[in-house]
């Protein structure tokens, strides 16, 4: 399969359809689940899909080491290339990694101002025309609404899509009666799209619980394959 075909047939097109065309610039999405269910895999798959479309991505991480994140990308790329029998995979790979930057913020309690300042420096001074920002490891339970407001303003000002992961911790219940993660309750205005990941028999089911202002009860026809860690129909 050639690259264009692969983009067209990606299961992520279904996700976009459910978001009525996609997340859209200036908007924030969050993928929520308990630890170890597959948030990072999903985010990396979403990022890789953008990279296939030659859209630059910045991957922000608060916790992981750089080589660990790069391994995620390598694994997801390999699985996609294998599954779709991608033609000239090595060339495609070399092309797409040029559009990916990983930014790590190691210290606990790095201020959102500092993160945004560095992101802006990367985009402007580094001349890196990112459209998508992936933010993994941001702790919603220890942050304030003001942090998310800053991210939202930033996304709008620079025309970015921002994808967060949100870790769900502690005792049940983790969700309200509409299926919205409780930890994100304070951030409903800033977050446009929320997708949850939950175990369902041997699959991990993706569920869109909020899409651009409306909460949609109902499942996405998407799962996360626990073996390849790819999003699949």
């Amino acid at each position, binding site marked *: 399969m050639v690259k264009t075909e692969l983009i067209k047939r990606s299961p992520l097109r279904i996700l976009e359809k459910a978001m009525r065309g996609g997340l859209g610039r200036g908007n924030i999405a969050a993928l929520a689940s308990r630890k170890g269910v597959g948030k990072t895999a999903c985010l990396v798959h979403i990022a890789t899909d953008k990279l296939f479309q030659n859209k630059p991505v910045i991957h922000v991480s608060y916790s992981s080491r750089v080589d660990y994140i790069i391994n995620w990308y390598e694994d997801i790329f390999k699985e996609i290339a294998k599954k779709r029998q991608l033609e000239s995979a090595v060339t495609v790979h070399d092309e797409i990694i040029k559009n990916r930057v990983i930014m790590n913020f190691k210290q606990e309690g790095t201020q959102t101002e*500092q993160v945004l300042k560095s992101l802006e420096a990367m985009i402007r001074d580094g001349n890196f025309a990112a459209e998508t920002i992936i933010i993994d490891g941001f702790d919603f339970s220890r942050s304030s609404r003001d942090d998310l407001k800053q991210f939202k303003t930033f996304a709008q000002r620079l025309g970015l899509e921002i994808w967060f992961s949100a870790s769900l911790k502690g005792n049940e219940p983790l969700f309200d009666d509409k299926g919205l993660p409780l930890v994100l309750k304070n951030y409903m205005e800033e977050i446009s799209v929320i997708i949850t990941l939950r175990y369902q028999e041997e699959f991990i089911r993706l569920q869109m619980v909020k899409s651009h202002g409306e909460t949609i009860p109902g499942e996405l026809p998407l799962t996360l394959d626990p073996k390849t860690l790819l999003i699949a129909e």
Partner: protein
Amino acid sequence: MKTELSKMRNIGISAHIDSGKTTLTERILFYCKKIHKIHEVRGKDGVGATMDSMELEKERGITIASAATRVFWENYSINIIDTPGHVDFTIEVERALRVLDGAVLVLCSVGGVQSQSVTVDRQLKRYNVPRLAFINKLDRVGADPIKVKEQLIEKLGHNAVLMQVPIGLEDNHQGVIDLVTMEAVTFEGANGEIVRRGATPEHLKAEAYEKREEMLDAVSMFSDELMEAILEDKVTENLIYDAVRRGTLSQKLTPVFMGSAYKNKGIQLLLDGITRYLPCPADTETTALDLDKEGEKIGLLPDPQKPSVSLVFKLEDGPYGQLTYIRIYQGTIRKGEELLNTRSGKKFRVGRLIRMHADSVEDDISEALCGDIVALFGIDCASGDTFVKPGLNIAMTPTYTPEPVISLAISTSDKRTSDKLSKALNRFTKEDPTFKTYVDPESKQTIIQGMGELHLDVYIERMKREYKVPVETGKPEVAYRETISRKIDFDYTHKKQTGGAGQFGRVIGTIEPLSEGSYEFVDNVKGGHIPREFIPSCNKGFQAALKKGRLTGFPIVGIKVTLTDGQAHAVDSSDLAFQTAARDAFYKSYSKASPYILEPIMKVSVEGPSEFAGNVFSSINQRRGIIVSSLEDGTFARVDAEVPLSEMFGYATTLRSLTQGKAEFTMEFLKYGRVPSNIAEELMENYEKKRGHKGD
């Protein structure tokens, strides 16, 4: 003299350039009665500090080569590895670190934790070297040891704890208060050799007690006994010493000493600290690779009875012949015994076994025990080799040697100096594995290669000074390569019949890109259309063609040639005819195979305060670089990028001005990457012009 393992220390003295490391080392040698007269680094007496063995170092006031020397303090034996402090010589630093058990991090009381300190400290961390800090130059205007200790905590993330507080600073600096014994320690005599201990002066008591409390708080984390003793108010000096030692060995505590090496203050207490808190060889775990078991890790035991294992960490071509510095990790090495170099597989006999003092040979010894650092004479080996007692087949982890990244053409005026030049080059390449040299077969120019502009500068200086060879240098150059992107067929006949013996050879086959390796030749000729004896001639002909690409004159790599058919003539075919046929077949086909130019891409790491991250991003972007990742840890930032080497010349200067000298970078070769077409055109044009001049 034999020393028990527990009384042995192998230490390094690491520091930012100009923080007084060499002066400090000099004082240590003096107080240990090794030398009897103190010379200054930039000495008026023209002798220079003993550890700086080279003229150039004396003049610049810096230390380039590390020398190992042994001293005795009380009844402890201390091997001191003097490590250079400049970034372009990190191979020297890294090799020295490999054999250290502990280190003293020297900081300037005015300059504090500088960028170089950060680099050096990271290197120490990488090799898990426990360390003490010594805040030097308390006599300087603006000295502030408390601030420097805070920087150790903030900038380097150390759990730094003051073991002393100063008695007076700047002009009034007299000594220190030892927070363990609570004595005021001052230094008297012409060279501060008399240590006086007295009561803490009244005006300093409050501060001293406060800092002692802080110290006890931090230190008691490492000892339950001390914790209890504090509660019961039964603290003893030994309990504190023991706890500090434990904390230091676990690398979770950095005891901070202070003084002024130049004014002879505080050095003896630092020596006490080295023997009390830094590890002995038995405190450090060492592993080696078992070559019989595919490099499986095995532990080495610091037991003199075991078969010996030692690591070559430095070669030096001194006035008395080649010296090989080794660190013995296991067993005992005796004069006259046979050892095996596991890299080369060669056995050799230990002729002379020597202990070194700066650059003068010290004493011949008959045996050396594990844990020690000694030198051998006249052994043919390379840095990083492992010597074992025959019967063992293990290697120490290879010392990491980066690839040279820059080359420079050099030339001399006449024949006489060119002999001296080759002598100099021969010596430098033996001493320093990152310095390489060769003669370009094309231009007949001597090319030197190294780790950076400054690295090569220093060697050019040394050629002028030590060997009296004035050299002219060209512009630094990048090693380009060429390759092809398409598979093509060829069918070429070489025919020459102009009187005398004719030449005839026909070759048919394919040329295609090869992803791994630089050249592969496949012979698929059936039916003897090319006689067997001429197949190697064809191979030779193709290889000759690869030496010089048509686009830039640089070698061609990544080529697979398959010979499928051909034709020969009973009389006119010859070795030469087929060589020519193959070579010209390649030349003729090359342009059809869509050739392109490759350039070395470097892995570049820039480190500095995070406030300059934006400047660093833009400087990399301007250099056709790709930022791979960035990391921010508080105020510290690191940017990893891939940048073409050709864009990196002068980057040190650019970075300095972009970041007020607060950031620094390292780079190493990563891969060859395709040159973008606009730049490729420029390169080809330049090559055309050059060829035009030569009338080629």
